[in-house]
Structures are given as C-alpha cells and as structure tokens.
C-alpha cells in the first residue's frame, strides 16, 4: 500500500530549508518560526505514522515505478516499526532544539543560515532512516553530513574550525568506504534495493568479497557512529558545536546515520554470520568501556558528555551484537529479542537524556560563560530549573530508577545474563557504576560546590524558551520509562524488534508488494 505521508517527511524539511534561505534574506526574525513550523509538521507526521500506522511496513515508491516481475526498480521509502521510532526521536529532539535555539542563537549572527542548515540536516536524517535503497542512504547521509560539518563550524573560531576539519576528513573517508562497499554490493547482487539484496544474498552464491563488503560498511558507518577505534572526531566536534547542535549531533545524528544503519543493514540486508556478530558485540563492549574511562578525566562539560555518548552507544551496539550472535547460533530467540529490544530502548532513551544534558551544558555556558567545571559551582541556587533537569538527566544516564535509563540497562544486562554472556553483563554493570561516578562529579562541581571566589558576576536563570525545552525533555525522560510496561512495549518496541528479528519478513514484504 502506498502511503502518501511518507515522502512528506523528507520533502517538508527540504522545502523548509530552502524557503528559510530565501525568505530570511528579506525578512529578518522569521527564519526561527519557519524552522519551528517545519519541525512541528515533521514531528506531527512521524508520531501519526508511528501511533496510527499499521503493524506491517508501509512503502512509498518514488515516481510510482512499480516492481517489474517482482524486481523492485524504483526508489523505495520504507516506514516500519524501527524506522518509525527513530523518526520520532529525530523530530522530537529537533523540535526542542529549535525552541531552545530561539534564545540561544541570539549570540550568533546569520540566523537564516543556521535554521536552513538545521532543516537540511533533519531532511538528510529522515531520508537515511526512510530509505529502502542503499545508494539513497549514501545520498541522504551526505546531505546530513555536509550540513552538520557546516553547523559544527558555525562559530568560525579556531576550535570550531579545527573540530570541523577532523570531522570532515574522517567523515569523507567514511563516505568513500561506504560508496566502495555499495559498489561491491551492486557488483555481486546486481541490485541496490535492501530487500532485494537480502534475497540475492540469502539464496545464491554470496561471492568471495562478502566479508570485505561487511567490513567496509562496518568501518564506514562505525566512523559515522564513532564506535571506539573510530571515535577520534566525536569529542571535538560535539563539544565545539553550538549547544542545540551538540544535542542534535549526540542525541540523534550518530544514531540515525550510524547505529540505525548498522543495525538495519546487518539484520535486514546481510545474512547474519557468527564471526561478524561476535565482532560487533566486541566493538560495542570496547566502546562502552573505553568511552567511560576517557570521560572520567574530563573537566570540560561538553567534552565529558561527548565521551559518554561513545560509551552509551556501546551499550546499543553490544546488545545488537548479542542478539545477532544468538540468532546466528540459532538458540534462544526469546533472549535475542530481549537483547535487541533493550538496545533499541536504550537508543531512544539516550536521545532524550543526552539531548537534555547538552541543552543543560548550553544553559550553563549561556549564563556562566564557561564550560570548565573548575570555574563554576553553587549553580543550584541561581539556576534551579537547569539544576533540577540536569539532575534528572544524570540519574537517567547512570541508570537510577524510576528514570528511563534504568529500565533499558536492566533489559540489556538481563538479556546478556540469560544469553550466558556473563563477562559482558558484568562489564555493562561496571560501566554503569563508573558513569554514575562521573555524573556525581558533574553535579557536585557544577551545582553544589561552593562558588569560586573570582566570579562576581550575577548569574541568572536562562530565558523561557530554553527552560521549556529542558523541562519537556526531563518529563520525556520520566515518561519513556513507561515503554518498559508490557502493554506499551508491545505497541511501540515490539514491532521494531520483530522487523529486525524476522529473517525474511522485511525482504518478502517489500519485494512482494
């Protein structure tokens, strides 16, 4: 069934970006409201599709090129349980970041460029998530990557430019590896549609370069997702960007163009092999542990948060890897489903609490004028809302009940124990404790310590739009715990897990329409 709402998710932000550029040239002050309208529309459509959509994937074929003899030839945009969930977090965090930017970006000039690039980044991410065609994933990936390079450099000072250079060189290397892998896929499978590639890989001879394709794709998207050996650009880029952009990059971008694509391709496109699954689980565990150890020595707030992003993404990759390993061995499908559910749940949660933490860091920078933990203290009195919301987010990321982070980490650890990955389960618990320690340090130095004597400036709470975004995200952090309840989980998380677990469902439903 063709669903006409699906292409709007790419078309609206794309149109919003270009209209913002044109209209913003003539009328100052309007770009922010145009971006807000764009994001509101996108958020409405993505939540509508998730909540009212049928359980089976719905497909839109661009240009109406119907499959010929069962071979898909058009560009497919696919909306299923998993992509629907990711679309919702993209538009929710995007919307709140735009509201936050209304006050925050008053520091900067060229407002219309900022909002145009922001909408372009959203369009690119939505496109990556919706695309059912591997070459279009590459095209949309580049749209979001180029706009995020520009957004990281938005301050055009020394640090921003250095960060964006690293980001851009590594991002370009990653893109070419992905394109190289796509070429190999086209060579061996003679098609670019993910579902069709799956049927080509699962029936015929996979060719000698099957492993090379997997390694190239894992490296390419691993660079985009900043899994540990490829993480060098992330702390610089995420800490140099303006804070609402850091929230978008850490909260959404590394998931939409990195983690989402890795999970989608390795579950729905490749035939799962045990070697690759173990490799993915190991990389995940490595990022989880190394990220948190690198984070603990940081005194710059945003850099600390950026290293925690690496660590938390490790949880997601590790649980996907556990699920894949169990599926490859063909044992305990219930535990595999639990692990994958935990991973997806943690990904959604991470978007909420890491987005909130970066917005808090931005609020502190806005009021105090520094990001160094040594130079602040006693902010709990002067900035009560920032303090309370960041406390909620810190509890959430360290996995304290009743916040959402607790439930997703619990599910991941339980799944690891049930799947007999005792070492990984112990590591996950240990990393969670170190995360707690690291956030205790952040809370204590920023909000509860005595004020340093050299600050004589009056510190005020941030303006209302920034408060609104932070409070909304803190409420979202609490509400997301409800996803752990059986009734709610079945309608939101289970469809996402099913589409990944069911080996043939994705490809048969998309090619067989």
């Amino acid at each position, binding site marked *: 069934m063709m669903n006409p709402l699906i292409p709007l998710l790419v078309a609206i932000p794309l149109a919003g970006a270009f209209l913002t550029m044109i209209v913003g040239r003539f009328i100052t002050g309007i770009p922010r409201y145009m971006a807000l309208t764009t994001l509101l529309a996108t958020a409405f459509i993505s939540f509508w599709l998730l909540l009212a959509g049928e359980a089976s994937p719905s497909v839109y074929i661009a240009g109406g090129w119907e499959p010929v003899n069962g071979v898909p030839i058009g560009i497919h945009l696919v909306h299923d349980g998993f992509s629907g969930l990711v679309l919702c977090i993209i538009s929710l965090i995007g919307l709140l970041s735009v509201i936050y930017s209304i006050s925050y970006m008053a520091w900067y000039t060229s407002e219309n460029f900022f909002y145009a690039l922001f909408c372009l980044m959203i369009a690119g991410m939505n496109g990556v998530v919706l695309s059912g065609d591997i*070459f279009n994933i*590459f*095209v949309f990936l*580049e749209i979001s990557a*180029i706009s995020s*390079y*520009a957004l990281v*450099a938005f301050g*055009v*000072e*020394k*640090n921003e*430019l*250095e*960060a*964006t*250079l690293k980001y*851009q*060189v590594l991002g*370009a*290397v990653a*893109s*070419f590896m992905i*394109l*190289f892998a796509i*070429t190999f896929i*086209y*060579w061996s499978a003679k098609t*670019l549609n993910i579902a069709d590639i799956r049927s080509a890989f699962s029936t015929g001879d996979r060719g000698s370069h099957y492993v090379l394709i997997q390694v190239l794709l894992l490296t390419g998207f691993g660079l985009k997702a900043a899994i540990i050996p490829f993480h060098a650009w992330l*702390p*610089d880029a995420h800490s*140099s960007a303006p804070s609402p952009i850091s929230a978008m990059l850490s909260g959404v971008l590394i998931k939409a163009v990195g983690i989402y694509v890795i999970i989608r391709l390795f579950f729905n496109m490749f035939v799962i092999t045990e070697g690759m699954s173990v490799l993915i689980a190991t990389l995940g565990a490595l990022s989880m542990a190394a990220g948190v150890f690198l984070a603990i*020595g*940081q005194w710059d707030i945003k*850099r600390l948060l950026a290293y925690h992003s690496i660590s938390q993404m490790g949880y997601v990759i590790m649980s996907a890897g556990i699920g894949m390993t169990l599926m490859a061995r063909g044992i305990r499908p219930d535990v595999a489903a639990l692990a994958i559910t935990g991973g997806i749940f943690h990904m959604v949660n991470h978007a909420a609490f890491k987005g909130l933490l970066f917005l808090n860091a931005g609020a502190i920078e806005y009021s105090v004028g520094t990001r160094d933990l040594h130079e602040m203290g006693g902010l709990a009195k002067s900035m009560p809302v920032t303090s309370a919301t960041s406390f909620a987010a810190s509890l959430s990321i360290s996995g304290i009940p009743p916040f959402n982070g607790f439930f997703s980490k619990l599910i991941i650890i339980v799944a690891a124990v049930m799947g007999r990955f005792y070492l990984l389960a112990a590591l996950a618990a240990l990393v969670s404790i170190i995360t707690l320690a690291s956030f205790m340090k952040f809370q204590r130095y920023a909000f509860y310590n005595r004020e340093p004597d050299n600050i004589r400036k009056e510190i005020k709470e941030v303006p209302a739009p920034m408060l609104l975004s932070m409070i909304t995200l803190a409420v979202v952090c609490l509400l997301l715990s409800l996803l752990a309840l059986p009734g709610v989980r079945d309608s939101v998380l289970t469809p996402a897990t099913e589409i990944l677990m069911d080996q043939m469902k994705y490809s048969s439903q998309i090619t067989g329409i």
Partner: protein
Amino acid sequence: MTVYLLCFILFLTGLYGVITRRNLIKIAISLSVMEFSTFLFLALVGYREGGVAPIVDTADPVKTYVDPLPQALVLTAIVIGLATTAMLMAVIIRIYRKYGTFDIREIKNLRG
C-alpha cells in the same frame, strides 16, 4: 582483473595520502584521489566487454549494452563529491586565516 586492482591501489594511495600528509591542501587532494578511484570503480562495474551506450535498438536485439545504472550513480556521486570538496576547501581557507598555516602539526588547540 588488473584494472580493478589498479583502481584499488589508487584508493589505497589516496588513503595513504590522507594519513601521512601534513599539508591541509594535500590532504584535500588525497581525499579527491580516493573519491575518484571510487567513481572509477563504480563505472568499471557497469562496463561490459564490447558494450555500447544503452540506447535500445530494436533492429539489432543481440547487441551488448553497458549497464546504465552505475553511470547514473557516478553522476550523483560526483555532485556530492563536489559539495564535500568545496566545503572542505572553505574550511581550510578559514583555518589559514585563523592559524596562518596549512601545517596540520601547528593546528592543535583541542586535546584529549
């Protein structure tokens, strides 16, 4: 087979350049080398021995055509590559204005 290997060597040359060069402009050139080796490979995958341009001729049904899809992909990828290179060059020019050097060893404000 040789031509594919040469293409892969070109890709690795670009990667080597990105890793070892110290000058920002040379890094950008190495990235372009990587980029074009990928485009070349993409075009090679669509090539058929003795193939002609894929304009279907009903009078001669046995004619071999080259695969048109990789050619379309290469065109798209070239446009994307142009945008990436332009963006990178813009950043490098800005860096030169701020730091007064193209040497990557001198550009190290951010640490750890």
